[in-house]
């Protein structure tokens, strides 16, 4: 098993360095000759100068089915093509790809690239987490349109002292877990919400605000 990193500049470098330090074998493929020279001088990795979207270049990398391929070029369509070459021609099962346009994530997933890295989405999530108050933060989008939220209940919250079954949560939302003083409380209908509880809620993105108002009371 080796980690094959295709494209990318400094990200590729730091990723390779980190993976090497963890003891993995690393192959770097890049079509920039200066970068390749720099990589080979400073990293104990196999460095291949070439276009990673070409089958011959991937053959040089001796791509095999149990490798992990990380695709980091700045162009989505190139990344998509490389991912499909790796999966369909070389039988690689684990492919991680950078996707620049959030609108393309769906297409990558449709074509079997399960792990996509999208900087825009990551930044949006981070910014939104800052915009929402502390007690209400968006953790991760689970799937398209479904999100996982964390809500910290304080004494001002309208749900404090209520039992779960008495809270009129919209249909497309569910309290998945309650953490109370660091301990997991499995939510049941008769579970009472206390101040300080941390609620983990799975919610349809459309009704996120509605759930927010209900739990935080703003």
């Amino acid at each position, binding site marked *: 098993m080796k980690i094959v990193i295709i494209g990318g500049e400094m990200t590729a470098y730091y990723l390779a360095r980190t993976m090497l330090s963890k003891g993995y074998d690393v192959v770097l493929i890049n079509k920039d000759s200066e970068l390749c020279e720099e990589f080979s001088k400073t990293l104990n990795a196999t460095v291949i100068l070439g276009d990673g979207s070409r089958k011959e270049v991937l053959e040089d990398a001796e791509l095999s089915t149990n490798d992990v391929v990380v695709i980091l070029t700045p162009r*989505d369509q190139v990344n*998509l*093509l490389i991912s*499909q070459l790796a999966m369909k*021609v070389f039988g690689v099962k684990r492919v991680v790809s950078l996707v620049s*346009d959030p609108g393309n994530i769906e*297409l990558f997933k*449709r074509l079997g690239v399960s792990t996509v890295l999208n900087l825009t989405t990551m930044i949006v999530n981070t910014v939104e987490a800052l915009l929402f108050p502390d007690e209400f933060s968006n953790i991760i989008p689970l799937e398209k349109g479904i999100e996982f939220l964390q809500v910290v209940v304080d004494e001002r919250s309208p749900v404090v002292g209520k039992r779960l079954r008495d809270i009129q949560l919209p249909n497309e939302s569910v309290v998945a877990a309650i953490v109370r003083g660091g301990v997991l409380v499995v939510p049941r209908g008769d579970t009472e919400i206390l101040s300080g509880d941390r609620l983990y809620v799975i919610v349809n993105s459309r009704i996120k605000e509605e759930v927010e108002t209900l739990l935080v009371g703003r």
Partner: protein
Amino acid sequence: MKRSRKFIVVFGCGRIGSAIASVASMKGHNVIVVDKDERSFRRLSSEFSGFTVVGDAAEFETIKKSQVANADIVFALTNDDSTNYFISVCSRYIFGVEKVVARVYDPAKAKIFEESGVEVVCPVTLMVEKLRFYIDGGDKL
């Protein structure tokens, strides 16, 4: 009954794209031709009566804007294999277009197009077939 008037979207208005778009338009089909450079539409025949869209086909929005959702046939004829692949799979998987034809420069990539249900036209393969004639049967002068 088969519709005789087809809706055809052509990506890439180079020599081949412009020619196929012109032919299709002159045959009475509805044609949209897409290119990122407005000047390339000058290659279209004066009898071309379809529509043109300026945009980068490597962007999902451009493909959407080009009304691929209603297309009977999509031709991916830009000068870049990755872009053609992107156009093809968007058309097939997102917009459900039945017939997608792509030009593929690198024969090694033909397989992944075909596995995605895309018909491939590979200039190298075509040329080689044509040239083989000179080896196999070129001696009959």
